[in-house]
């Protein structure tokens, strides 16, 4: 804002001094000199800024520390380990900046690794290779990424375990398959060791027993790191390991990964079906009324199914804040292995207003939403009929008796006449 005002003031000044040319020239010259000075300062500043980091490549003092990588590497003794620089992965992969320099330090030591005489370690594409990893390699590693204008660093932790059963909870990758379906286990984090996918040979073990390749149950899919398991059963759960060999400078190293397979039963969802109430419910005004909404789920789970009532377009709670109409307790039950849910709508009591309200039972899960409308009809008109029924019955009976008597009387007469006629 300030600069804008100054500029405005300047233009006004210039307009006022329209005729005084020498003054303007000196002003312009002064401005030019000022601009040149500012430019000079800027150039010097930018130059020093860009050059500085290059001069202090090794010193980490001016480098931004991004913190500790959230993922700890849990590896097995005697195997190859590749520590990826956590913050540099994007840089290196996308070649955003091709001239980045990656260096590694261990446990706050100023000495970069690998050291001069280190033969087990080297840096390749920014990642630190340790081959083979020993217990002493465990610790915190600091990765520094630097280019001409930028520097950052991040630490990552490596833990080395003995190849024993006790290590399994730390080194295992949990994987989950669904009961009675087919699915795959995947041998994870092998990409650095795979040079040609088609040559990849992974051996799979369950509880340290090699899985037979001709097994119908397990199939190691060629060219992938997957183990296909047919028709997963509860017994398939447990510890698996996958192993491949990695050759380096004439030496063969084993790379193993441990997997803990858990077998889940899928919570099945079905499309719910509302089986009651009827479209109209008869009730007498002033009396208590319960309309159950009953939903059939079959094999579907109760837990993801929502069931509620609405009055026109409003929830029951907000429509009847006084609590005259309420939703009753939800009931979940099974009959012959088929699941049902029920939520009653309770009127205490029914009033005339309810006859003009659209009550809806709504059931909803992630597969479907169903709705059933119901209306309350007054049963009072029918109660008149019920009251009249016995009266009309009595009346009918009386009429019947009367007619019968009359008829009997008449037939009696006729009979008499006939008798007279047919008599001798």
């Amino acid at each position, binding site marked *: 804002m300030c600069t804008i005002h100054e500029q405005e003031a300047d233009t006004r000044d210039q307009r006022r001094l329209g005729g005084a040319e020498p003054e303007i020239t000196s002003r312009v010259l002064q401005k030019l000199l000022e601009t040149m000075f500012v430019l000079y300062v800027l150039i010097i500043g930018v130059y020093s800024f860009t050059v500085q980091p290059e001069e202090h490549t090794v010193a980490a003092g001016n480098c931004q520390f991004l913190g500790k990588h*959230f993922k700890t590497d849990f590896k097995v003794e005697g195997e190859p380990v590749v520590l990826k620089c956590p913050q540099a992965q994007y840089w290196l992969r996308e070649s955003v900046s091709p001239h980045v320099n990656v260096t590694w330090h261990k446990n706050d030591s100023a000495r970069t690794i690998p050291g001069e005489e280190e033969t087990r370690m080297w840096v390749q594409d920014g990642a630190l290779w340790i081959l083979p990893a020993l217990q002493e390699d465990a610790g915190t590693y600091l990765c520094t990424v630097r280019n001409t204008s930028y520097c950052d660093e991040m630490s990552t932790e490596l833990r080395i375990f003995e190849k024993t059963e006790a290590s399994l909870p730390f080194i295992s990758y949990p994987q989950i398959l*669904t009961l009675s379906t087919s699915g795959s286990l*995947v041998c994870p984090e092998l990409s650095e060791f795979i040079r040609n996918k088609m040559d990849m040979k992974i051996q799979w073990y369950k509880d340290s027993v090699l899985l037979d390749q001709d097994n119908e149950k397990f199939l190691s899919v060629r060219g992938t790191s997957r183990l296909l398991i047919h028709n997963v059963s509860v017994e398939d759960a447990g510890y698996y390991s996958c192993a491949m060999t990695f050759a380096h400078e004439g030496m063969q190293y084993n790379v193993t990964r441990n997997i803990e397979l858990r077998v889940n039963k899928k919570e099945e969802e079905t499309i719910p079906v509302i089986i009651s109430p009827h479209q109209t419910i008869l009730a007498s005004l002033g009396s208590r009324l319960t309309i159950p909404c009953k939903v059939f789920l079959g094999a579907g789970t109760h837990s993801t199914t929502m069931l*509620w009532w609405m009055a026109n377009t409003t*929830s029951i709670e907000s429509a009847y804040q006084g609590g005259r109409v309420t939703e009753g307790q939800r009931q979940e039950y099974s009959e012959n292995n088929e699941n049902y849910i029920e939520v009653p709508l309770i009127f205490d009591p029914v009033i005339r207003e309810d006859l003009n309200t659209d009550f809806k039972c709504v059931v909803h*899960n992630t597969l479907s939403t169903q*709705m059933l409308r119901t209306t309350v009809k007054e049963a009072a008109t029918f109660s008149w009929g019920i009251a009249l029924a016995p009266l009309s019955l009595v009346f009918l009976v009386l009429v019947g008796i009367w007619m019968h008597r009359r008829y009997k009387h008449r037939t009696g007469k006729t009979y008499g006449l006939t008798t007279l006629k047919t008599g001798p």
Partner: protein
Amino acid sequence: SVLTSISPPCHGCTEIPHPWQKVECGPSELWSTQEGVEHRVGHTEVVSHSRVLLHFRIWDVNQKTFYLRNNQLVAGYLQGPSTKLEEKLNVVPIESHAMFLGIHGGKLCLACVKSGDETRLQLEAVNITDLSKNKEQDKRFTFIRSDSGPTTSFESAACPGWFLCTALEADRPVSLTNTPEEAMLVTKFYFQMER
């Protein structure tokens, strides 16, 4: 408020534009009221009468789970004690097969955002239970679930033809693709409710 852009789309995603499709909608008046009390029914958290917040576990058919790395949702393999970093999906079902998806207790929501030729998955810092299916601006948070055998795919309602995907490679961002059949991508997920 956009917290972070999750990722550029999966390889080759931006090349084929997909025509806009209308999303099937259920009875609209059903969701017109959002008021209601919080209570629990069974294992389901009832936010209001028409809202229910469910918790699902998601992992792709290659057994990669989701986790956050620098505010970016990535899919990879978590080991031993690191498994506690796994992000579960918070789900608000809105109608037949349609749902809002969130992570981090429903504080970050998954959205499909189109800008120019680019279609991408975005994590936005909105509360999943504040989303409404009636608001056009909330449509980007809607995903349509389709099941095939034990696995589930998620198509964006705002970006028809775009599916939630992970890369074959581990620790790569979760994103969206319009070429779900591509071999380098995974669009099939195991999606199971947490008890």
